């Protein structure tokens, strides 16, 4: 008998008004033993998070319902339909959970001590002094530096990685039998991700927990999991030892998933191509104001003296961790943010131009944002969103002509033109990102800033978008400024890269050269975190 036995688990969500019910999970079975790591891997919407929440019976019942044959047995005890009091004893005590978003899963009004001690007080009825000692011990265990002085800190005073450590400390406070981690590192930088994963593995071994890891990231699965279940559309299509699944995938979906990592390299750039965008000593400093008179006390140097050049038809990749100033640099080059220094577009100095004079030029330089959910106005239809630029720049005579151009652009990015009258919320993330690309593309620009266009998307969709971008570049000789923290994607797309840290460039050069033989210690650390994960896992596979 395993520690956790899930048999024929199904979850159905009742539809809104008369809409049909949605089957999120359909009859899946798996088991988990002490000291073991099981990965549930799949793309968004595959039902993996719903499965995790069912184990703790945390779904919004009765809108969500299990079929009668669904069974979740924890140490021989049935959890489906168990009494709420019993479930509360299990939650946070025997089975604990770490959520994806460390920014929102900690209560912003409570200190660390209060948040962590809460579970101890509730489940162990520990006296406050003992709880404090235990809290400190836990913070040491999860490797938070200066734990004593941090006890009174609030979540906003911690970085993302530190918050995730605190989340883990909360989860393991009662030494649970099972730790469920739902995308525990997705919101973190690569170097932090490696540290958190190491921490979780170490804690699993030390405390003898079972770890249920939910992720879309195959590199993490390979690195962490003993066994793997591949989920798609609410079903487990393949399960088995991780090494075997990676070496000999049986199901077509698994094979597709494994093949989905961005591959291929760009065609070598034409070195004689004309310079399209040049930045010279670009600086974006945000003033910090203090005191009653709001005097400028200092500056946050988001971008601090960056020079770069992008040639027509080539891609310049900008890599770095969050807060390194990549996005700010992109916006500054487009003059969407005020910046100092020289910015030239096609030989014309645009650094000092007033916004009004820049408007005609906007046609030539476009931008695609990271989050396809916030970059499309929810109140406009796809046709309106894509057609807006045409209207502004008076391209195409009349409505019918513009409509035709919009539809052509949609076809070009691989969308059905019949979808033009639908709203953004009816589309998946990948489709929305295609809409955003179509919006940029319909103007036939020469330069596009791509700000992490793939990082909010599923792996297989990422690969499609990368292919699409490469194809469009070849067809229209587009110049890209490609901003990303994902080195695999950058490698598949960029001719040259800049590595940024704290607003400055620490290394630059040909992509392959920087990736294979990094020079600067920071670049080395970055590459190690991103590719060592992969390197270690290829050994185990």
């Amino acid at each position: 008998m395993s520690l956790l036995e899930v048999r024929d688990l199904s979850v159905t969500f009742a539809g809104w008004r008369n809409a049909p019910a949605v089957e999120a999970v359909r009859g899946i079975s798996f088991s988990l033993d002490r000291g073991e790591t099981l990965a549930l891997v799949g793309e968004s919407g595959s039902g993996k998070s719903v499965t995790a929440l069912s184990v703790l019976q945390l779904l919004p019942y009765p809108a969500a319902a299990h079929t009668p044959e669904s069974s979740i047995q924890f140490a021989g005890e049935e959890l489906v339909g168990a009494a709420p009091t019993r479930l509360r004893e299990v939650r946070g005590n025997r089975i604990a959970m770490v959520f994806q978003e460390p920014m929102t899963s900690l209560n912003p009004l409570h200190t660390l001590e209060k948040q962590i001690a809460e579970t101890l007080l509730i489940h162990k009825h520990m006296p406050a002094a003992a709880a404090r000692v235990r809290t400190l011990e836990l913070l040491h265990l999860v490797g938070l530096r200066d734990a004593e002085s941090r006890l009174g800190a609030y979540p906003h005073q911690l970085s993302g990685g530190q918050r995730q450590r605190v989340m883990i400390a909360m989860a393991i406070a009662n030494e649970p039998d099972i730790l469920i981690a739902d995308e525990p590192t997705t919101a973190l930088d690569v170097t932090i991700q490696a540290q958190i994963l190491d921490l979780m593995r170490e804690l699993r071994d030390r405390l003898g927990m079972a770890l249920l890891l939910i992720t879309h990231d195959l590199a993490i699965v390979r690195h962490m999991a003993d066994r793997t279940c591949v989920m798609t559309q609410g079903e487990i299509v393949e399960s088995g030892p991780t090494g075997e699944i990676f070496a000999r995938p049986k199901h077509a979906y698994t094979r597709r998933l494994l093949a989905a990592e961005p591959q291929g390299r760009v065609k070598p750039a034409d070195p004689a191509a004309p310079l399209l965008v040049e930045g010279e000593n670009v600086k974006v400093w945000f003033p910090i104001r203090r005191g009653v008179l709001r005097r400028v006390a200092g500056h946050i140097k988001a971008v601090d003296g960056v020079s770069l050049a992008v040639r027509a038809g080539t891609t310049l990749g900008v890599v770095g961790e969050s807060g390194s100033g990549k996005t700010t640099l992109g916006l500054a080059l487009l003059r969407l943010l005020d910046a100092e220094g020289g910015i030239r577009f096609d030989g014309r100095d645009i650094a000092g131009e007033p916004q009004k004079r820049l408007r005609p030029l906007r046609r030539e330089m476009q931008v695609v944002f990271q989050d396809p959910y916030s970059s499309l106005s929810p109140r406009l239809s796809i046709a309106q969103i894509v057609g807006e630029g045409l209207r502004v720049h008076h391209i195409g005579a009349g409505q019918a002509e513009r409509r035709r151009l919009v539809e052509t652009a949609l076809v070009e990015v691989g969308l059905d033109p019949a979808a033009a009258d639908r709203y953004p919320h009816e589309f998946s993330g990948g489709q929305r990102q295609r809409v955003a690309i179509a919006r940029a593309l319909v103007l036939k620009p020469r330069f596009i800033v791509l700000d992490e266009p793939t990082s909010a998307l599923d792996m297989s969709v990422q690969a499609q978008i990368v292919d699409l971008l490469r194809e469009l570049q070849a067809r229209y000789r587009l110049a890209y400024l490609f901003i990303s923290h994902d080195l695999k994607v950058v490698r598949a797309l960029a001719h040259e890269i800049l590595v940024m840290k704290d607003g400055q460039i620490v290394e630059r050069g040909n992509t392959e050269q920087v990736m294979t033989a990094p020079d600067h210690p920071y670049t080395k650390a970055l590459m190690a975190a991103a590719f060592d994960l992969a390197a270690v896992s290829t050994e185990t596979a």
Partner: protein
Amino acid sequence: MNASAEVIAAGTRGGDTFLGRRVTPLTRRRLDNFRANRRGFWSLWVFLAVFGVTLFAEFIANDRPLLIRYDGAFYVPVLYNYAETVFGGDFPTEADYRDPHVIGLITAKGWMVWSLIPFSYGTITNAPGPFPAPPSRTDWLGTDDLGRDVLARLIYGFRISVLFGLVLTAISAAIGVIAGAVQGYFGGAIDLLFQRFIEVWSGMPQLYLLIILATFVQPNFWTLLGLLLLFSWMELVGVVRAEVLRARNLDYVRAARALGLSEGAILFRHVLPNAMVATVTFLPFIISGSVTILTALDFLGFGLPPGSPSLGEMLSQGKANLQAPWLGITAFCVLAAMLTLLMFIFEAVRDSFDPRKVGS
């Protein structure tokens, strides 16, 4: 997804029209969403029917006949004034069609068609006193303490209250949304100055001001509207400003700037529509507030000039004449029903503008 696909299929079915106009599938879906809220949908029809009927109050409750046939010619007293001499009377002044003498003159040589309720809001009925007289066959809801028909006054009073409320809401919403949007979008010094101004301005004692001004000028519909507008426009500013402040840094606004849109176009096309849900959510409260503020002023006696039909005046009469419950009960029921219908309607409007909701 399935349901929305059906809606789209229905929407693209050639030449979809609403009230004779071609509508886009988006408008179609909003209409369907509105209709899906049965309560709001029916409330709208009931309200429109009642409001539509009262708009033609002169043809329903009037102390002049709708049509007179006299001596081989037609007369329309509801639209035109005729002297008594026209009908063979003695005075060159306007005919009093309720005078038995005049009635006798006319019916001798023709006939008269009366409206359903043969009283206007100011007509003294010939119910036997003392006033207020209870409901009877001629005065269906009784009379007030001056002997005027309650039903006739109700119809006129309802019309003026609703019109006043709608006009006041429309104008103050327009000013409030624009002011809030400008503050939120441009921020900085504009925002700072405007906010301080609003703080000072909203500190003015509105009611005292009205009472003081009422001693200088005889208030009428338009002066009251103007006075209330001075203060009511501020209600929406805070909501819209907050929404716009949030929206102005979103990616789709940046994207619009990158497309080369002017600031005004961004504000009106991208930022404002997304701030509209909050506005629409707030509107029913403002409408019901505007409708009731006229009633409240009339109740206190600072509203429309004496003699005007008004729900507030009827309420205060009901309070003064507790022995005549038809006054208070009528005014209360009409006010309660009107406010409830408005709430239901706007609830449905809010649903229909919500992009996340899919019509069934």
